[in-house]
């Protein structure tokens, strides 16, 4: 038993039949973000540094607001999976489970808060 490796123990048991979905999800959101991130950086960048009135007026326009909302939802969910992947890799046991759920909760709070702010700015 001393030299039995994890690979040998797993061999012949078949695939886990799960996990590919998460990978595919990351690939799709990566591709989407390659378009969204540059748009967001340059719209957000031109708003940042403006006065209060300028920022309100800027985010009342549809294009910057929709870009920000899309980037927020797709981006934060993508980062949530990124962080949860790291937690699964490095934190184990109860602490790992708690950290996994906490990372998810933080992501949804960021998304909900951001969308609320964007709607309020736009209206």
């Amino acid at each position, binding site marked *: 038993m001393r030299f039995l490796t994890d690979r040998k123990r797993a061999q012949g048991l078949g695939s886990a039949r799960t996990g590919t979905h998460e990978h595919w999800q990351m690939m799709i959101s990566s591709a989407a973000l390659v378009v969204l991130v540059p748009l967001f950086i340059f719209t957000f960048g031109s708003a940042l540094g403006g006065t209060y009135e300028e920022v309100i007026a800027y985010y009342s326009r549809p294009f910057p607001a929709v870009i920000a909302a899309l980037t927020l939802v797709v981006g934060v969910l993508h980062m949530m999976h990124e962080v949860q992947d790291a937690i699964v890799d490095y934190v184990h046991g109860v602490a790992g489970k708690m950290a996994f759920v906490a990372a998810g909760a933080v992501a949804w709070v960021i998304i909900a808060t951001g969308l609320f702010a964007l709607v309020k*700015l736009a209206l």
Partner: protein
Amino acid sequence: MADVNRGNRPLSPHLQVYRMPLPAITSILIRITGIACYGLAVLVVAWLLAAASSERAFDIVDGILTSFLGDLVMFGAAWALWYHMLGRLRHVIWDLGYAVEIPIAEKMSIAMLAGATVLALFTAIVV
């Protein structure tokens, strides 16, 4: 697999004595910048929420983000965001089955580091 006796197994070279190839370093940086971007999302949302709340709240958060320290943080965040985007793009390219040869992977690593720096500087100049 936790029940296996790992005590007497021969060990492969430890991570600390193993000189990491450039593609490995750039790959780990993708994860680090990804987690940093999570922090950036909090800053952006705090700024948007402050703008949506009141002029006073906006002045406080905007003052922090546009201060010298804020500028440094935002420049670092821009670099991390660009780097992460290029890194993920590389993974999408790999996933489609292209450019998996080691010399190309090393060239792409250099391109990611240089590209992120150029794009971050460009962002800082333009906005």
